[in-house]
């Protein structure tokens, strides 16, 4: 039984099929990479899984329960947390308050929420910034704040939407370390990423989207040698 099952999911915007008939499953404890050229429908797929969009066709099952059509907050309560490609910190709140706000989902009182928040911030290396107003945080840390906030909801499945984009090499290594630690805690991860080095080294399996369709699925090694993928994605990247 898969933790998350995406079954023949399509999402249309007017006449445009952003995602068409995509199916795959994610097993407990694995890191699933989702790659594809710009506009391939990766974020749209995240938005369907997370509940911002209801799929036009198909369904999403989480822990064998149908979640497509539920609101995002319900899906989050069931155990799916996400980060945003364009970071959305609660700007005029301190970093600590940001994380407390999401920790309240599973906490019975403020003390408990604060404990969770501090633990998660320690885990993501944000402890020194707890009093900083998140508006003033540099991009690298804002991306990590997104991860910290998502973790504070105690998810079973974590959706990371380009959490590595725009990071410098040092921050990149730090974030890779954090993702590995999250996996060790037994949290399943689905990750959208353009950084080939990151995705190839982190993922257990990879799904490749192109023009909204799944064109390949397999281990990083299989994906790296798949001619379709090379043509659609890697080939393009190498030429650039």
């Amino acid at each position, binding site marked *: 039984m898969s933790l998350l099952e995406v079954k023949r999911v399509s999402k249309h915007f007017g006449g445009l099929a952003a995602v068409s008939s995509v199916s795959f499953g994610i097993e407990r404890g694995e890191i699933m990479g989702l790659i594809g050229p710009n506009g391939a429908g990766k974020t749209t797929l995240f938005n369907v899984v*997370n*509940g*911002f969009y209801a799929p036009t066709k198909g369904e999403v099952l989480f822990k064998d329960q149908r979640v497509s059509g539920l*609101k*995002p*907050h*319900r899906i*989050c*309560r069931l155990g799916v*947390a*996400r980060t*945003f490609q364009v970071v*959305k*910190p*609660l*700007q*005029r*709140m301190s970093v600590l*308050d940001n994380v*407390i*706000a*999401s920790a*309240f*989902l599973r906490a019975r009182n*403020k003390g408990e*929420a604060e404990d969770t928040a501090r633990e998660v911030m320690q885990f993501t290396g944000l402890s020194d910034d707890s009093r900083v107003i998140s508006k003033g945080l540099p991009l690298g840390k804002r991306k990590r704040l997104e991860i910290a*906030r*998502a973790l504070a*909801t105690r998810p079973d499945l974590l959706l990371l939407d380009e959490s590595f984009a725009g990071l410098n090499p040092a921050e990149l290594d730090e974030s890779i370390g954090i993702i590995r630690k999250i996996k060790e805690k037994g949290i399943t991860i689905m990750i959208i990423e353009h950084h080939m080095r990151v995705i190839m080294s982190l993922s257990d399996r990879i799904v490749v989207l192109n023009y909204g369709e799944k064109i390949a699925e397999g281990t990083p090694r299989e994906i790296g040698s798949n001619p379709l993928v090379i043509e659609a994605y890697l080939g393009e990247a190498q030429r650039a």
Partner: protein
Amino acid sequence: MKKYVTYIVLGLLALLPLLGLNSYVMHILILVIMWSVIGMSWNLLSGYCGQVSFGHAAFFGTGAYTAGMLYNKLGISGWWGFPASVFVVAVCALGIGYICLRLRGPYFALATLSMGVIFRIVAENLVNVTGGDLGIMIRERTWIDKTWYFYIILAVAASSFFLVRKVIGSKLGYYFVAIREDQDAAESLGIDTTLYKTIALILSAVITGFAGVFYTNYMGYIDPKVVFALHDISIIAIMVVMVGGVATFWGPVVGAIIMVLLAEMIRSIPKLGTAHHTLFGILLIVIIIYLPNGIVGDFPKIKRLLRIGGVPR
């Protein structure tokens, strides 16, 4: 020391009537406190939760008419309006919320603005129920003296102040601010944004309704044009908080003092007095440009400006 500021202010206010102030000064004090109640309630919904309402007159008027009609139709004291208005205003807020809270930002603001106007027009035209434009007159005033009115509105204000502070320090407060800062992020963090916006709206509406109930009992006369007024209630509620300081505990109090005193002063200026709304408009523009966080929110900035002005270079 700072912890006790609230109690000290409250204590001093409670002593004021003992000074034997004249009836006009007492009236101004009562208005200031009433407006800080309205400001606090508007601040809860619009300042903390970010849902900017242009229609708080709907709740003020509903509270006022609840009290007025209890007296007029049932022949009981208008003060019963306090318990009764909780139910009546909450139901109205629920209806308004159902319609307006699915809209965001300026669309929500416009929808609430129209709600305020709709409530006024309904109150004007349901002549059998509300008495229409004739309004409602409370013929037996409870007290001639203003002292007890002062203590009653002071009690309402103190309760509202502590309630708002309690709410903002709790999970609700975190959720309200999260919704204000980014509704999509809040939703994906497991916050039921529709539910918590509705809670903010109902809390805010009920507190404003209390101010309305008090107004009826205090003034002894209400009509739809006054208690459902867009310019005199809804907009002034916004101005009180904008001038004092959005999303601050003391902002509505400071704003109420300034707005009530300003209104009294401007009205007494010959010729210019009738244009007080125009002057309020200009004041609002100045505040938004120079003190976008209001007097309380931008207090450090004001202190800095005054110091630079005071020290010769």
